[in-house]
């Protein structure tokens, strides 16, 4: 190492370290994000359920609510259908 490098090093930024830190935070975030996100099939499941229910009762799209909740060692698939009071 040269004599001047000793002083120069102080000023020079180590961008590789910065890259590593940013990636570690980002990737940790993206990995947890993915495991918590609702599965891809939920919207389609919901649409198909609405279709089946419509064969028997009249419900609008917003009356059917499907959600997946993660508990410690099991998942709950919750299906909520609001039937209107109106008699057809």
């Amino acid at each position, binding site marked *: 190492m*040269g004599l001047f*490098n000793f002083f120069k090093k102080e000023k020079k930024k180590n*961008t590789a370290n910065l890259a590593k830190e940013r990636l570690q935070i980002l990737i940790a975030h993206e990995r947890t994000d993915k495991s918590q996100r609702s599965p891809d099939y939920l919207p389609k499941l919901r649409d198909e359920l609405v279709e089946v229910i419509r064969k028997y009762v009249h419900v609008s799209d917003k009356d059917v609510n499907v959600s997946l909740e993660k508990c410690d060692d099991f998942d709950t698939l919750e299906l909520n259908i609001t039937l209107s009071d109106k008699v057809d």
Partner: protein
Amino acid sequence: MSKVIVVTSGKGGVGKTTSSAAFSAGLAARGHKTAVIDFDVGLRNLDLIMGVERRVIYDFVNVINGEATLKQALIKDKRVDNLYILPASQTRDKDALNKEGVESIINELKADGFEYIVCDSPAGIEKGAFMALYFADEAIVVTNPEVSSVRDSDRILGILQSRSKIAEDGGSVKEHLLITRYSPDRVEGGDMLGMDDIVEILSIPLIGVIPESGTVLQASNSGNPVIMDKESTAGQAYEDVVSRFLGEDIPLRFVDVEIKKKGFFQKIFG
């Protein structure tokens, strides 16, 4: 027993096709019957990198559609025995590839005695990339020491772990990290992510580090897999990758800064 290996990355331009060409040529040169398949439908380039572009008559999609037999479409390499190339189609039809078609081709190759089937994935996470990795037993994830490439590699690793056939059946694809375009000088200078950092972030085993080298461009210019250039550092590094893949335990080369002789004044003033 045949093995299906996908060469993938997520990001484009990191060296998937260069690596597929070198890796498959290296396996074949050691006596293993190897097929390399280009999955980049619509943008085929493996044929060009391997120097067989003028010998393409039938392609991957022709075989899937029954317009040609696999034997007719496979191009036998003239330099290396045991090496066969299956080019991609130039069709713009996105649905040209399907699971059944790809599976039947892979099964036919296995029945024909191919030991290694290397699948050169297109960039992205669309259908072509998905088809390339779906039947894989092992994956070589090509990564550049650069933030966007590392992030995309992590995405592809997630897809390998959740959407490949092995993963669907409850198993896991064996993953290998291949770092390409590595410059030890720039790592030392703090401008480039070091290989240890990349391994730490992605946490998969390293199969090799290919140094940045002008010979890679020269090799693609002339249509020869860079592994055939025995003088070049990149070619030698690919040889090491093949050795490690086949189970040899050998140290990494070309990952440290070359010690250059400095003059007296350079030594003092840096």
